[in-house]
C-alpha cells in the first residue's frame, strides 16, 4: 500500500487527445475534452484515486449484472473463431 499524498492525488496524468471531443488520462478511461466545458458547466475536482474508483466500481457493477442474469456470458469471439475455423457451421 502506498501512502496518500494530497499533491500527487490532485495532479492527474497528462491528457492524451483521443478524438476531437475526448481525452484519456488513465488507460481506457475517457473524459470529455475540458475545452468543451468552459461556458455552461464547471468541472469538478477529482483526486486520481476517485476517478479510478468510479471506473472500477462501474466495471464491478457490470460484472454483477451479468451474474445476476445468467451463470455465464458466452464469448462471441470464441464462437466466431470456431465459425472461421469451419467448426461451427454444423
Amino acid at each position: 500500500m502506498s501512502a496518500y499524498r494530497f499533491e500527487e492525488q490532485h495532479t492527474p496524468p497528462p491528457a492524451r487527445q483521443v478524438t476531437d471531443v475526448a481525452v484519456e488520462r488513465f488507460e481506457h478511461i475517457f473524459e470529455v475534452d475540458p475545452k468543451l466545458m468552459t461556458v455552461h458547466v464547471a468541472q469538478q475536482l477529482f483526486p486520481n484515486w476517485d476517478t479510478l474508483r468510479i471506473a472500477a466500481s462501474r466495471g464491478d457493477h457490470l460484472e454483477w449484472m451479468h451474474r445476476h442474469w445468467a451463470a455465464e456470458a458466452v464469448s462471441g469471439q470464441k464462437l466466431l473463431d470456431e465459425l472461421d475455423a469451419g467448426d461451427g457451421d454444423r
Partner: protein
Amino acid sequence: MTITGTAPQLSDRVLAELTDALGGEYVLTSKTARYNRARVPAPFPVHRWRERVPDLVVLPGSAEQVAEVVRIANAHRIPIVPRDGGTGLTDGAVPERRGIVVDVKRLDDIKEIDLDNRTCTVGTGINMLKLNEVLGAHGLIYPDDPASYPCSLVGGRIGTSGWSLVGSRFGHTRDLVLSFELVLPTGKLIRVGDGGGRKVSKSSSGYQLKHLFMGHQGTLGIATEATLKLYPKPEAEFSPFWAFPDFDSAYRCVGELARAGVATFAGAVLFDEWKVDYLRRDDEAYIPQPADVRALVCAVAYGNDDEVRAGGRRLLRIARDAGARYLGDEISHGDWAARHDRYATPLHGRTPAGQVAPMSWHCEDAAINYTNLPAVRREWHSIVARLRDKHPIFDDWGMFFYTSADTGVDYLTEIDVGIWEQELDDAAWAAWVDAKRDIAAVALNHGGSISACHGSCREGEVDLVPLELGGGYDVMLQVKRALDPNNIMNPGKYGLQRAYEEAP
C-alpha cells in the same frame, strides 16, 4: 356533469380520515415528501413545476389500506394518483391536478414462491432486481427487464403495460403477470387475470380484464398484489455487438437476425448514425472506434448453455454474411450489461457551438413495422432538426430500433432528445409539444402505434390518441366513466375528462 379545475383544499376532516386509516406517520404533508413526487423522468416544463405538486402523499401498507384511501378520496371527490417507482416516461405518476399521491413502496413483500408451478405472488411495490435476488437462490428469474430495471416496480409495470428488453424471448409485462389484485376507483378490491384463477396463463372464460387494467396509466385503479410467471434462471447469455459502415447494411442485418427463428433469441437492436455520433461524445466503448463505424447492431440470447451456443453460432453466421464486424467480447459484454440500467447514463448535450451543456435525456417512442423504419427515421430526425434550429436547447441524441417480438414484425422505435431543461420557457415548451405531436403523427402515418413502451398520455401526442384508436377511444371513455364515476383516479390523463362532458 362537468368536473374541472384543481383539487379542493384538503380539509382537516380529510386529513383526519386518512390518518385514522393509515396512522399519522404514513400521511405525509411535508414539502420534501410532496416535491419528490411531483414529476417523473419524462419531458417536463420545469419552469412550471409548482403546478404539479400533490397536496399530500400516503404510504399504505396493505391492499385494504389502499382501498380505504381510495374510498375517502372518492367520497370527497379528491384526485388520487398511484405512484410506484416513478420511472415512467409518460407522466402517468405525475399529479397533474394535485390531490393525493398513493405511493405503494411499502407493498413490497414476497408472499409466495411456488416452485412447482413456477410462479410467485408479490406486493406491487417490489422492484424486479430485488425480487430476482431472492428468486436466484431457487434457480429462477422473473425476466421483466426495462431500462429502469434497478429502480422500477412491479406495480408501475402493470400500470404502464411495460416493455422488456428481453421481451422477444420471455414476453413483456402483459405476458409475465398472470393475475393481479387492484383497487377500483370506487374503492372496491378485485382480482383480474386471464379469466379466473390466480395462476392461470390461458383462459377462455369471460372478458380478458387483465389487459384492460394494464397500461391505463393509473386512470382505472391501483394494483396491490401480482402473481408472476417465472422462468429458470438462464445458464448462458450471449450479446454480440457489431459495427457497420452505413445504416442500410445494418438495417438489413437486424431484419435477418430477427427473422431467423432462433429459439433463444431475446432481442436485436439497431443504432443509427446519429446515435453513434452521440455515443462517440462520451461512451467509453465508442469513443475509440474508427470513423467508418457508422451504425451498430446488437443481438441478445438467453437460455440453456448448449442452446444459446447453437443459436449464437447461427446469429454470428447471419451477421458475418451481412458484412458485420464484431466489436469484441469486452464491448459486447459491457454494453449489454449497461442496458439493464439506462437511468444512469451521462446527461449532457452539446450546444450548436459544441460546448457541453447540462441536458436531460428524453425519448419519444413508437411501435413501427420493420419495412417502415427507414422512412420514420428520416422524418423524425427532420422534425428534431427543425426544433433545434429554432431552439438550440434541444439536441438530437440519435435513434434506435429494438425488436418487440420474436418474429421481427415490429420495433420499439425511439429517438432520444437532450433537453436543457433549465433554459425551457413557454415558447420552447410549446415547440417541444408540437414536435412530439409531429413525431406521433409520423408513426400513425406509417401504420404504427404512438408508443410501444412509454405510453402516450403527455401533451402533444395525447391529442392523436383518439385518431389512433378510432372507435376504441369512445369505448375507453365509456369504460372510464363507468368505473370512475367521479373522475378521481388520475384525472387529466389520456384526455379522459371528455368522458364527463355533457354532449352538446
